[in-house]
Structures are given as structure tokens and as C-alpha cells.
């Protein structure tokens, strides 16, 4: 197995060595359940066989709760405890470390996303038979969420690489991702047109909205992929910085 995958595997499994992952996943799913079915009347009052609510709430939940918690330890903890030295002096390239860490964290987030698949499965194909669901927006929505997860995890990884404090990594990731998700809402009320354009261009939620409607726009796909690539590159550079600083 390549070093990248070995690191990813270890990273993924280490999430389950502490109760944190369990707590976050469970609480996250429970909250999602309540919000989806009951918040403001929730799913039942919408009277539509739509998972729009899911795609509306899930990104925010991922951003402010799950991704910061999952990514905060990635490199910050390794730096703080010194295990990074041990890891990097194994025959492994720096980019393999970054990629391995990234894949390990992304894996966990994808598992959480996968868990939310139980909603459509139970509601529309399984036990409840609530009606026939339009599968197009569902698949597009999940594709959007996967891309979104890829981008947000890379942002979290970057901040974890830049600091050696988990707490700082958590809060910076929390605020940056929170801002990116909420930006779409605020963009319209920004008085300066130029700023408004920029804000709506970089906001995550505006781009996710089209996925949730079943529209796969290459611009959105490329946007998320670019953010991911950019943050991974930056993380790689940040990790390399140790050599010279």
C-alpha cells in the first residue's frame, strides 16, 4: 500500500479511537433529523416529496460542526505532540503526508454524508413509501455535497497545517467556512456591486443551491475543485515551511 493510503487509513481509523467522532456524528445526525422533520413544520408541512430541506441544512451542519472538528487535529495535533517528526522522517514525501491526511479526513466526512443517504432510502424506496422521488436532483445534490465536502475539508486541513493548536484551527475553520456558507445570504444586501459580485462568486451556498435543484454546472464543479486544489497546495507549502523556518 502506498504511504498516502497508509496514512489515510490510519487517520480515518484514529477518528474512532476517541469518542469525539462518535459524538459528532451522532449529534449531527440527530440534529439533522430534528431539523429536517420538525423545524418550522419541517418535511411534513412541505407536502412535497423533496429532499430540498436536507440539502439546505446539511452544508451548514457540515461546515460549522463536522468539518472543523474532523480537520482540526489533522496536522495541528501532530505538530503539537511532535509525532509529525516521526511521521515525516519515515520514507514519505511531504505531499503524501498532506494527501493522506486529507483523504483520511474526507473519508470520515463522506461516511457521514453516506449516513444521510438513509433519508431517501427509508422515505422513498424503503419502508415508508412516501411517494416517488425525483432522483435527478438527489444525485446532483449528493454530487454537490461531495464536492463541497472535498473543498471544506481542504480548507480545514490548511488551517490545521498553519497552526499547532487544535483550538485555533477549529475556530478559524469554523468562522471561515461559516462565512463562506452564509455569504450567499448576505451578498444581496451588500451595497457595493463589485463586492456583491465577488461575495456571491465565492459563496459556497449559492453554488450548492444549483446542485440541489438538479443542475450540475461545470463552473460550480470547477470552483469546488479549484478551492480544494488550492488549499491542498497551500497546505503542502505550509508543511514544507518547517524546513526553512
Amino acid at each position: 500500500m502506498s504511504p498516502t493510503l497508509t496514512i489515510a487509513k490510519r487517520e480515518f481509523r484514529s477518528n474512532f479511537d476517541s469518542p469525539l467522532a462518535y459524538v459528532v456524528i451522532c449529534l449531527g445526525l440527530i440534529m439533522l433529523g430534528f431539523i429536517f422533520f420538525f423545524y418550522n413544520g419541517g418535511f411534513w408541512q412541505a407536502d412535497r416529496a423533496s429532499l430540498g430541506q436536507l440539502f439546505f441544512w446539511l452544508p451548514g451542519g457540515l461546515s460549522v460542526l463536522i468539518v472543523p472538528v474532523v480537520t482540526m487535529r489533522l496536522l495541528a495535533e501532530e505538530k503539537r505532540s511532535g509525532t509529525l517528526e516521526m511521521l515525516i522522517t519515515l520514507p514519505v514525501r511531504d505531499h503524501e503526508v498532506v494527501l493522506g491526511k486529507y483523504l483520511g479526513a474526507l473519508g470520515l466526512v463522506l461516511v457521514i454524508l453516506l449516513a444521510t443517504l438513509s433519508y431517501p432510502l427509508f422515505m422513498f424506496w424503503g419502508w415508508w413509501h412516501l411517494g416517488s422521488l425525483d432522483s435527478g436532483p438527489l444525485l446532483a445534490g449528493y454530487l454537490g455535497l461531495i464536492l463541497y465536502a472535498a473543498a471544506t475539508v481542504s480548507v480545514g486541513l490548511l488551517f490545521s497545517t498553519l497552526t499547532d493548536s487544535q483550538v485555533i484551527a477549529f475556530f478559524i475553520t469554523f468562522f471561515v467556512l461559516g462565512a463562506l456558507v452564509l455569504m450567499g445570504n448576505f451578498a444581496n444586501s451588500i451595497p457595493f456591486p463589485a463586492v456583491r459580485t465577488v461575495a456571491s462568486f465565492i459563496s459556497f451556498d449559492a453554488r450548492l443551491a444549483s446542485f440541489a435543484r438538479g443542475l450540475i454546472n461545470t463552473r460550480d464543479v470547477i470552483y469546488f475543485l479549484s478551492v480544494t486544489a488550492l488549499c491542498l497546495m497551500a497546505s503542502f507549502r505550509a508543511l514544507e515551511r518547517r524546513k526553512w523556518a
Partner: protein
Amino acid sequence: MIEANGLSKRFGAARALDKVSFEVERGEVVGFLGPNGAGKSTTMRILTCFISATGGTASVHGHDVFEEPLEVRKRIGYLPQRAPLYGEMSVWEYLNFVADMRGLDQSTFKKRMKSIVEVCGLAQSLGKDINTLSHGYRQRVGLGQALVHDPPILILDEPTSDLDPNEKAEVIKYIKEIGKERTILLSTHNLSEVEAACARAIIVSKGRVVADGPLDEIRARSGKVRYVVTVHEQKVYEGGEGYRAGARKPPTATEVQEALAKLPGVTAVSELPTDDKAHSFQLMGALGADIRPEIFALVVQKGWLLLEMRRDSQSLEDVFKALTRGDERRDRGRKLAVDEDEDEDLDVAPKRAVAAGAAGTDDDEDDDEDRDDADDDADDKDDDDDKDDEAADDEDDDKDADDEDDDADDADADDDDDDDDEPPAKKA
């Protein structure tokens, strides 16, 4: 096997390493000594390609650490300071992870584990989480992970820090065991460990190599022996030659000092602080000559009441202190540039003499230049006395000369001046 050539490293404005050069030959166990912050870990991190040097080159097993870091890392087993391990993994999982990272397949890994478990004494703790292990066991696991791939070279950064004395002894035992067929660079600031495990030592201070060679040779570095003589300030020995000759007055400090300074081979006499009624002096004598008989004869002749006389053996620790304290002084630097390196090497350890000796002289030259450069900013906080204190030398016992220095004179009544770390001794 390991070659460092003029390694320099700056952290911002601070200079962590300054043209560090040394060589470690195949099969050597070399102690890498220095006070905290001397640059030991920095050097090791450069050798393991964790950080890059600002200047100079280094190669491990023939591979340059800057050009081929992966090749270097494949051949090195590295234990960083404090053995940072993933606490949440069990010992077996962790070692398995390291083996995976090093591309070992499962059957090779299991085969290797048999010997590692035996050498490192891990049989009882394989299933335990690393978090729950004591420091000593963590170090064992750290050693284990460094050995998983059976590397020809081991770099161990303070493998015995944070350990209790028993654990230290254990780890040193493992290192000796492991070192039978491997090249080991072992950093520590515990000198007794070096004496236990290594035949050769490299001493670094403030980012420079200040000594490099076999331990015996390093011990003989300062070339001087220190004597301590204490006589009573208010009494004379009634019944002695001097008393009968009419000397009833106790000696003054100046008298004693002058008389001692006239002894053959004495290069310096300085008064030591005392808090009881005694004059205490330290004498520096040449290495190889023992002037204790002369001192005794002098005391008898003068009729002084001798309270203490001892000759300090020069331990590695003394040399270490001497080398690492005032190393920026020009004269001290000169003294260290011992040219007989090669000859002594040949005597002590013929098989590595050629290479090590050659390396040694190279280093010395480098050092000289460095020192000249650095003289401008050399701070003179150490005074001469200090230096002389440390500069005694002998092959007798290893004894903590400095400790005794400090309280040599507020002694009570004990004897036996050759015991280690005894409370201050006096002879009536």
C-alpha cells in the same frame, strides 16, 4: 556512513549550527553530546531530512540528505526526542503502521517483530495502548519503530531523557545490544550513558563541534590535574617538624599560597572560598606528574595542620563542562585543536583510526576558523578561574570534580578523597 560537511542552520537571526562537520563510520556507536540548545537535535533533524540546513552538505549511506531524502530515510531508523508516538494506537498497531509506511509486507514484519520484541522487551505490552505505557516503555516502542526495517543506521535523539535510572540503564543496554551490528548516532546530555555505550563522542556547543574523538582522548583533552589543599587557619600541628623548629603561629593565606606556588610543576594557585577556619587552595599541575608527595613534605616541613589534600581525577564530565562553557574564547578553541588526534586514534582503536583521525583534524581546522570569526562577539563571562577549575585531568576515577569544588571547604570531618560525589572531605 554518516557524513556532515560544514552544516549551518539559522533560525531567523539565531545561529543554531555553525559549520558542523563530522563523520561516523560503519559499525560505530557515537555519542553526540552537548548542553541543551547546542544543536544536537537540529543536526539530527537535518540528517533525517526533517528540516533543511542553511548551508553545508550531509550524506547518509552515500545519499545526500537534500537530494535524496527518501533514500536516506529508508536507511535510517530515527527516534526523535521524547519518542513522539500516536498515543491512541496500540503498540502492535503502531509498529504495523510504521512497517506499512516503510513498505514491509506482513510476513517480513512479523519476522522482524520477533527479534524486536525480544531486544526491546515489548512482549508484555504489544496489545496495550501507547497512551497507557510508562515513559520507559514508550522509549522501547520508539526504539522498536526505529528498528522495524532493520536499518543499517540508527539516529537516536536523547533516548533516555525522562526516564528513571532503571529505565535509563535498560535503554542503554538495548542500545549496546542493537549497536553490535549497526551504526548509531546517539545524542544525550547524560555523560555516564555515553561512557557506557559509546567508544567515541562528538561534543557540540553553541552550534559547533568542539571535540570529536575516542572517549579516552577527549578525557585527556585539558592536560592538567587539579589538587586541592586545605590547611587550618588557626592551629598548627603540635609535634610536627615545623612546631619543633619553632613555628607556633598559624600560617597566613599568603604564606601558604606562596609556598604552594613554589612547588615543582605547579602552574597556578588560587584560593577557594571557605566558610570555616581554614585556608583552601587549588593547584593546577601538569598531567602525568603527581606532586602529592611534595605537598605533603611541604606541609610537614612548615608544620601546618593539613585538613584536606586531594587530587581530582578528570572525568568526561569535566571536559564536557570545560568545552561547552567558554567555547567562544580564542585560547580555549586553540587548545582543543589537538593535532595528535591521529596518533592516539591509532593506539586506541586502530581499525577506524584512519578515517576518524582524518575527520578529526579536518574538524579542528574548521573550528579554528570559526573561532577566529566569532571572537569579536565572544562574551567574556567566564573568568579564568572558572576555566582552570575544569581543566584538571587524570585517568583515575570518574568523579564529579565540580560538585566537590563548590563545597570542598565547608567540609565536616570525612575522609577518603577518592569517593564519588561525597560530601566535602577533609583530612586531619
